[in-house]
């Protein structure tokens, strides 16, 4: 593996990790913009814009863009989060140059009114689709409750109303401000020729204009509010818990990842043995999400309405025991083994490597080898996890649930503040 980097005078970063023995290559643009960067009146614009980049340029129609990708057999997609928009493709080495040129071209889209109008319907369909996925819906609503006014609580999809009111002109303004070369990284991984990529990028991207871009960073302690929403067509209770953690720039992020795995990995965690193995909940998982300047531990639990009180009491017990007795050496060792093997397996594929490469540059402006991450995970001690838990008490969480209508008499105090909202 050989790392390469280059920065154009307009601020565009180009990074690559060459692995000549790989059968494929991956290439993608990482744009440092997402829902948290949106003014309220244009909520949802980052995600909508991600769709619009595939609608073509002054030279290419949407159909021509799709045909150009499909002619190379590329597997490609894009994703928008609270703070990043990522465009990525995995491709056979012989097509990498063609696909890189295509991505570069798409980063300067036409944003035509007629395409905007048709795609708005697709976005509204996507919003409707996620409404029918309570496991997603509950996370989205809990995020907004937890961040409570902090920009990280902005919805990535936006609402039907905010997307409905959005104009193509507003989108073009947002694009001009955020898709500046100094706010973007082009990354490549796998089997490719660095020299060739460099000359294409220099030739095609040097004319892009640098802009004053920024983002206000502020840690968010979380609202710790509790809410429940009813949705009559649901069969199960869907519960999301969120509490604060360290930011992506903090070296303690590895301890945070291990703590989340100890508490809520799919199998073998405290949630697993106390909730799933005992059939109290059919799903219970915790993850840690490191973000720009802040971080969150988030849990998702699904169970029957009858089990809600017992499930929440059990979780309270797990968090209580963790803060009182801490974690064991053995738990930490198992969590490390699982994380290390996942890291090795993921990084065997150029696409897995591309994502780590790109995000490390976005958050840290740093190249980290797989070995760097392996050493960092191995170095975490029980004391590291304990001191993290002292600063970030998992028991101090925001809670949002959605579930079927329930008998009012059954409600209990510890299920938190109730609202009568229906949606």
């Amino acid at each position: 593996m050989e790392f390469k980097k280059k920065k154009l005078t307009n601020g565009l970063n180009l990074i690559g990790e060459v692995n000549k023995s790989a059968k494929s290559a991956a290439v993608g643009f990482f744009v440092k913009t997402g829902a948290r960067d949106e003014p309220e009146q244009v909520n949802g614009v980052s995600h909508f814009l991600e769709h619009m980049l595939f609608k073509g340029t002054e030279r290419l129609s949407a159909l021509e863009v799709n045909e150009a990708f499909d002619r190379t057999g590329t597997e490609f997609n894009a994703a928008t989060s609270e703070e990043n928009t990522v465009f990525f493709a995995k491709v056979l080495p012989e097509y990498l140059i063609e696909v890189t040129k295509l991505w570069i071209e798409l980063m300067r889209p036409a944003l035509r009114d007629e395409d905007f109008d048709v795609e708005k319907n697709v976005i509204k369909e996507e919003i409707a689709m996620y409404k029918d996925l309570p496991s997603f819906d509950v996370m989205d609503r809990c995020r907004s409750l937890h961040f409570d006014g902090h920009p990280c609580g902005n919805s990535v999809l936006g609402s039907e109303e905010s997307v409905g009111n959005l104009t193509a002109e507003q989108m073009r303004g947002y694009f001009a401000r955020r898709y500046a070369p100094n706010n973007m990284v082009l990354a490549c991984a796998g089997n490719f020729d660095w020299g060739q990529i460099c000359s294409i990028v220099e030739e095609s991207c040097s004319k892009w204009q640098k802009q004053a871009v920024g983002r206000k960073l502020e840690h968010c302690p979380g609202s710790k509010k509790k809410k429940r929403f009813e949705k009559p067509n649901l069969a199960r209770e869907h519960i999301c818990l969120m509490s604060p953690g360290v930011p992506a720039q903090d070296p303690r992020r590895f301890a945070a990842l291990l703590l989340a795995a100890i508490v809520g990995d799919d199998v073998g965690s405290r949630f697993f043995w106390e909730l799933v193995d005992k059939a109290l909940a059919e799903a219970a998982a915790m993850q840690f999400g490191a973000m720009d300047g802040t971080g969150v531990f988030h849990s998702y639990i699904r169970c029957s309405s009858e089990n809600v009180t017992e499930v929440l009491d059990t979780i309270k017990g797990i968090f209580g025991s963790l803060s009182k007795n801490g974690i064991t050496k053995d738990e930490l060792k198992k969590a490390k083994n699982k994380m290390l093997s996942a890291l090795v397996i993921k990084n065997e594929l150029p696409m897995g490597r591309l994502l780590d490469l790109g995000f490390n540059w976005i958050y840290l402006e740093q190249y980290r080898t797989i070995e760097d991450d392996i050493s960092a995970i191995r170095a975490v001690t029980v004391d590291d996890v304990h001191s993290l838990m002292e600063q970030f008490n998992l028991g101090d969480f925001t809670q949002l649930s959605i579930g079927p209508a329930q008998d009012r008499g059954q409600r209990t105090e510890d299920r938190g503040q109730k609202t009568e909202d229906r949606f």
Partner: protein
Amino acid sequence: MTERLDKHILKNGMVLLGEPMEAVESVAFVCMLPGGAARLPDGCCGAGSVIDDWIFRGAGDRNSRQLGDALDGLGLHRASSVGSSHITFGAALEAENLPQALDLYADIILEPHLKKDQFELARQLAIDGVHALDDDPRQKVMLKLREQFYPSPLGRSTLGNIDELTALTAKSTRAIIKGNFNLSETIFAVAGKYDFDAIAGQMENLFETGRKKLLEPVTFGAKSSEYTHIHNDGAQVHIGLMTETVKPTDEDYYNAMVAVSVLSGGMSARLFTEVREKRGLCYAIGARYHGLKDAAGVMCYAGTTPENGQKTLDVIIGEFNRLSEGISEEEIQRAKVGLKSSLILQSESSSSRAGGIAGDYYMFGRVRNLDEIKNKVEATSVDSVLGFLRNNKFQDFTVVTIGPKCLK
């Protein structure tokens, strides 16, 4: 592309396959046991989900917790699934831990404790899984579609149904395990970094059992109705649609794959272009080939708001019908490149290769070489695909919808 296939047949008849991969440090394995939903006795729908959980609740000299801890201690990434024909267990891990992992899986397959108290928990989780399906209409519509499309019991729900799960007992489920965990019909595959001779020796020792009589072949019943609607006051109507086509073993299989790819292989394919790009009717729209050993179909999903439901279904059926009227040379070329690329891109993952070689062996009785598949795809043409479509029209659709209103 030069790939090697390792093969060894154990004394008990279990087939052991391997595909070494030079560029990786990991290894993945899958074990396909003939205990899928269609192999279950009548009245036991869902027993596969229970078994999939129950056998991990203690095996050999380890109780449930000790077994879970031992698997986690090896850093295993476990995956298991219940299909129509098989229950499949597998894992991906760092290569050096494979021998210990095989020891544990031999215990799980040969000596699960199958305790009654653990059965109740496993069954409760399986029942919960069926209830949870009501909150996931997209998955539910596709499970219901398979049930309606395939002749019974091929499309039987792999999750189960509440009544039959409730009627299951520890005793009846133990009997199913005893009958269906037939090692003489089991396929075990590894891919990645491994020593095949060492694995073959270890597996002979671990699975030193006699040959068993092969399971009775499944007999098929009738197909269900053409249209089913399930009411749900959700935000979308979820549409599942399926039509019959040739099986994987048919000589026209590659023509069928290319035809489905023209319909829905990429973003320039017909369905995405007509339904989403031109009309903005859906976010999620796609069709794929779904092949069992005894029957196959083209399976399509679309999710859309109720006011667009009818139009979406009409456009989809129109595109299925229109396919045999003509396909351009460019469309065929894009479909072929897409199929060939995805074959190579998937070949970099050890998990995907282990699953691929085991699946091939079950379906074809041998593992197809990647070059062979590439050549067969390459040999198709506009004429061969159109000829196939004219003789095997996509018609007679089975449709299932879930949503606030039914469609015509």
